[in-house]
């Protein structure tokens, strides 16, 4: 460096570029220039990742100064849209940009917020698993003030997330995502869960600590991922056969191990295992109370499940005076009915799923599965307890985790169910050491997972299913992806739109199936921190559909493939320029389990570049210009900016009648946060947070676990038998059929009380045949894997990230097994073509031994053609190949991120 800086400071802020955050950092600023990112060492004591940030945060300096940034509002001058159409963006003033947008918005307000099909005329898509909300200031308040907005045009949700886990996880144990209790876990079976790449700072730290402590992790996946590299054992499994592996594990637990090695007390008292199931597959219920019955060993007679002092039989068949109610309340039986405990049903159901059976399917030796199952149970410590913050809890240090593509799409239900059942058999669900949920996004309140545990039907936790009864089920979706109509599990909260079958919105634009109102193009589409033209599937088709959207407003960092179709580009302050306060701490995905909770500030580290504006100021201006200021301000007061500004304990609410500056709004939020964290003792505002960066209070570790909340309320985990799901599925089928809607029938088959193994890999081979090709011509599975360096951050155009990511194998092309490649005459660096019956892409061969011979791997998501810098990478993406397909959509509305492909050498090394 040349000379000493006139002014030098270290500015605290947060990084929430990926779902594994937020994490805390500081930036060294000299003479007003951001120079270097460093951890926030002051946060080391409260942040479970020791106040550190991952590699992505180090891209933020270049992100700020990237010469390719959009630095002024732009408007399109070429009315034609398409990949091959140059948009002709020209700079305009903010005033003109707001005029153009407000004119459209006010026109919509004048003509009605919904179109003829009943869909919102305004749509908005945000990427990054909810992380954009930590960068969009008060824009959520604007959307709340606006009214109905379609947020169901996916940019990866459903097909690239833990979709089945999100939905079933929330149902079974308030687990939007699932994590081991890593700090005390001893044994993890990880089926494709790529924690070391996707678990963020905290996940990496926790697992590293655990490895030193002696944690053994068995990594079961088709290729040797970063996580596999850090595991004790790699078990290469055939893609999409994970459910069979888990079924074999359960088989060993149920049929090859002494019953006493299971956690029988847990099964009897905290699950529905003793519930009696009738001949029609529904619980036998007490005729008087309609409560499910169990067989009381003490009285030797059936009693309602919640009878005090009862000793329920875990196994056996019994005859009891009971009723059996089916779908729509149908009375299927009444009188002396024969019933079998749910547990016995499970035992019978799993009897044929032996390791030998699974070995054929998974291409994994039966002995391996048997050994893993036995190690799992040996490490489960059934019967042991541990004291946490003065509370004695069961100690079960074993966990099973599932990765993307394992826990979504067809087979996702079976995997999630089998995982949850397997851990519950040893009582390792929601107890110290075991398998835990992280947070809730469908249940409420979102900020209080433990508080979301409330009593529901049949002794289980309440769950906000979308109704399937005749009276309340609606054939008229509120948004285009029809989540409320098709996916009861998706609930109907703020996150539900993005957790519906988001690809259906795209698919139905060119043909809505019978029974649904014709899917229309939204009149305005807001896009922020998402690039579905790269991150979704069949990207060429998706980009083409986007080109037909009539008016797109893109909050743009640089030009990209999605905003290539935009009409207006709005440059907002990026990570190091904007201002926002967010919640931190508590428990949250991916592995963020804190001993603190509170708030952190993102503050302008450097002055905003060019004419970029803070998102909050943009939102306020839009509110003013569309006559929504009062409701916008009210939404902020209610908590749309992250926390309510007025509660019973404090009042920092803003005057709803007038516009407020960014700093005024966030000063009020900071004061409210101070009051919340200190129980009203403090009211420090923005200046305090600018100096300190964050403020927290203790968060008890007992709230990491759901078990105490269930025990307190006498509730049970809804396992293993899925009577309610079965009923919901039956009812949904009836509703759809009543409307002549039969195109969702295969999805209805997922609603099984005890899911059977289906030929999941075969579904993808059938998809090849359905495309008019021969399955044998597409003999490879193409899968993807997380790139920690690139994922989520919209940082594909950042040179530093590109440089350091190149140190991690696979970033340069398509990973192929070395022997497979040799057989095809492919050498390292050769140009290869990867094709499906419909699409083809090309890339360089990266030869490795750590991948199955029948599997190809494309790390991350590339194939950019508009994003500056990234468009020169010449790295292929599977997203160009994977079709949007109803056949490959499961009942939750998700698809799995893999495809059958052919492979051929087409050129030599450069």
């Amino acid at each position, binding site marked *: 460096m040349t000379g000493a800086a006139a002014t030098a400071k270290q500015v605290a802020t947060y990084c929430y570029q990926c779902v594994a955050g937020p994490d805390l950092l500081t930036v060294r600023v000299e003479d007003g220039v951001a120079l270097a990112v460093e951890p926030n060492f002051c946060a080391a004591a409260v942040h479970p990742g020791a106040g550190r940030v991952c590699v992505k945060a180090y891209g933020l300096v270049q992100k700020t100064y990237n010469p390719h940034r959009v630095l002024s509002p732009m408007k399109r001058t070429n009315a034609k849209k398409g990949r091959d159409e140059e948009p002709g963006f020209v700079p305009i003033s903010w005033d003109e940009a707001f005029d153009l947008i407000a004119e459209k918005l006010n026109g919509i307000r004048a003509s009605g917020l919904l179109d003829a099909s009943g869909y919102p005329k305004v749509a908005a898509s945000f990427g990054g698993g909810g992380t954009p909300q930590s960068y969009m200031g008060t824009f959520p308040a604007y959307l709340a003030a606006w009214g109905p907005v379609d947020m169901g045009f996916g940019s990866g949700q459903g097909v690239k997330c833990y979709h089945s886990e999100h939905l079933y996880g929330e149902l079974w144990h308030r687990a939007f995502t699932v994590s081991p209790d890593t700090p005390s876990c001893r044994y993890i079976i990880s089926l494709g869960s790529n924690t070391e790449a996707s678990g963020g700072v905290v996940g990496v730290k926790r697992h590293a600590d655990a490895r030193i402590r002696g944690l053994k992790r068995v990594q079961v996946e088709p290729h040797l991922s970063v996580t596999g590299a850090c595991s004790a054992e790699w078990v290469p499994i055939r893609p999409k056969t994970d459910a069979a592996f888990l079924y074999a594990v359960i088989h060993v637990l149920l049929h090859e191990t002494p019953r006493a090695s299971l956690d029988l007390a847990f099964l009897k008292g905290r699950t529905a295992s003793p519930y009696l199931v009738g001949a029609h597959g529904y619980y036998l219920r007490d005729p008087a109370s309609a409560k499910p019955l169990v067989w009381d060993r003490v009285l030797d007679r059936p009693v309602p499940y919640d009878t005090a002092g009862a000793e329920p039989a875990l196994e056996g068949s019994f005859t009891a005076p009971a009723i059996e109610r089916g779908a729509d309340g149908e009375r299927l039986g009444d009188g002396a009915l024969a019933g079998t405990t749910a547990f016995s049903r499970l035992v019978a159901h799993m009897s044929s799923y032996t390791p030998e059976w699974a070995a054929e399917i998974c291409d994994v030796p039966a002995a391996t599965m048997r050994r893993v199952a036995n190690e799992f149970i040996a490490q489960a410590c059934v019967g042991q307890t541990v004291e946490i913050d003065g509370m004695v809890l069961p100690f079960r240090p074993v966990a099973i985790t599932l990765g993307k593509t394992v826990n979504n799409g067809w087979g996702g239900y079976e995997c999630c169910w089998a995982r949850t059942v397997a851990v519950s058999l040893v009582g390792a669900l929601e107890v110290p050491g075991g398998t835990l949920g992280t947070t809730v996004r469908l249940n409420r309140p979102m900020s209080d997972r433990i508080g979301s545990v409330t009593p529901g039907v049949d002794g289980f936790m309440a769950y906000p299913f979308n109704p399937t009864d005749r009276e309340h089920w609606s054939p008229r979706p509120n948004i285009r992806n029809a989540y409320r109509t098709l996916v009861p599990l998706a609930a109907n909260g703020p996150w539900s739109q993005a957790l519906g079958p988001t690809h259906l919105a795209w698919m139905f634009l060119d043909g809505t199936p019978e029974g649904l109102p014709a899917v229309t193009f939204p009149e305005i589409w807001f896009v922020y921190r998402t690039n579905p033209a790269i991150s979704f599937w069949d990207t060429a088709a998706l980009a083409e559909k986007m080109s037909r959207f009539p008016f797109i407003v893109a909050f743009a960092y640089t030009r990209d493939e999605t905003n290539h179709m935009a009409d207006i580009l709005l440059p907002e302050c990026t990570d190091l320029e904007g201002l926002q306060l967010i919640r931190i701490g508590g428990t949250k995905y991916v592995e963020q389990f804190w001993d603190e909770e509170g708030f952190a500030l993102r503050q302008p580290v450097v002055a905003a570049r060019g004419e970029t504006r803070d998102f909050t100021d943009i939102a306020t201006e839009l509110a003013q210009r569309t006559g929504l200021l009062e409701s916008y301000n009210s939404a902020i007061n209610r908590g749309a900016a992250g926390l309510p500004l007025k509660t019973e304990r404090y009042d920092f609410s803003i005057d709803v009648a007038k516009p407020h500056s960014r700093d005024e709004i966030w000063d009020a939020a900071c004061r409210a946060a101070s009051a919340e964290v200190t129980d009203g003792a403090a009211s420090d505002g923005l200046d305090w947070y600018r100096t300190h960066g964050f403020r927290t209070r203790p968060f008890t570790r007992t709230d990491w676990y759901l078990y105490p909340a269930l025990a307190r309320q006498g509730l049970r985990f809804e396992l293993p038998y899925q009577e309610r799901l079965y009923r919901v599925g039956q009812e949904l089928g009836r509703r759809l059929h009543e409307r002549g809607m039969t195109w969702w029938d295969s999805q209805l088959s997922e609603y099984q009380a005890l899911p059977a193994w289906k030929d999941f890999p075969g579904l993808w081979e059938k998809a090849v045949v359905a495309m008019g090709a021969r399955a044998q011509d597409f003999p490879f599975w193409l899968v993807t894997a997380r790139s920690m360096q690139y994922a989520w951050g919209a940082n594909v155009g950042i040179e530093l990230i590109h440089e350091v990511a190149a140190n991690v194998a696979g970033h340069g092309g398509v990973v192929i097994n070395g022997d497979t490649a040799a057989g095809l005459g492919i050498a390292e660096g050769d140009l290869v073509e990867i094709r499906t019956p419909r699409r083809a892409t090309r890339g360089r061969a990266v030869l490795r031994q*750590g991948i199955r011979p029948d599997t190809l791997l494309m790390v991350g998501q590339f194939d950019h053609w508009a994003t500056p810098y990234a468009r020169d990478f010449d790295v292929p993406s599977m997203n160009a190949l994977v079709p949007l397909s109803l056949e490959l959509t499961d009942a939750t509305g998700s698809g799995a991120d893999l495809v059958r492909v052919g492979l051929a050498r087409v050129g030599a090394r450069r």
Partner: protein
Amino acid sequence: MTRWAMVADLRRCVGCQTCTAACKHANGTPPGVQWRRVLDMETGHYPDVRRAFVPVGCMHCDAPPCRDVCPSTATRKRADGIVTIDYDLCIGCSYCAVACPYQARHKTDRASFAYGGGPSPAEAARFDEGRLAVATKCTFCVDRIDAGLEKGLTPGIDPEATPACVTSCIAGALHFGDVEDPASNVSRLLAENRHFRMHEELGTGPGFYYLWD
């Protein structure tokens, strides 16, 4: 005496390259120059394959071959074991680069910036013409160590006095400290775990230890 050394715990490292990026920030190295990086190594044959992540960089050897060959005495070894380069003395002959068995030395002949063309404000602020056409390498963030010591801080314990790669490591894989002090963090790690030094057979005496068991 003090002997500063780095300890990398291979059981912890996940190859994320956070240290690589943090080093680039801390030292303002130009594109393509990585004083610290993490190797992604694979060994074996399917299905018996292992993949390992291995941080590398200047090993600050006891008997640094780079120092011995340096004709200008630009490369020296301090009493505390840190191998330094005096950019004003270096003639850029690269003899040190071919003498180093750890491929730790770099030479950039011309100014280069992340996006071609001119420097960004951050790059302009960091640019140092004196680093062009001379050998550069990891310094163990010697400036941080010296400044920290002056303030009474302990390198390896106090972040301000510790190499940036160590303080950034999200896995807690990198450690730094005084191996001559039996009570230091690194001495304890070396005493409690099995370790090796890379290319030990060459007799360079690297000040960089790898824990493996």
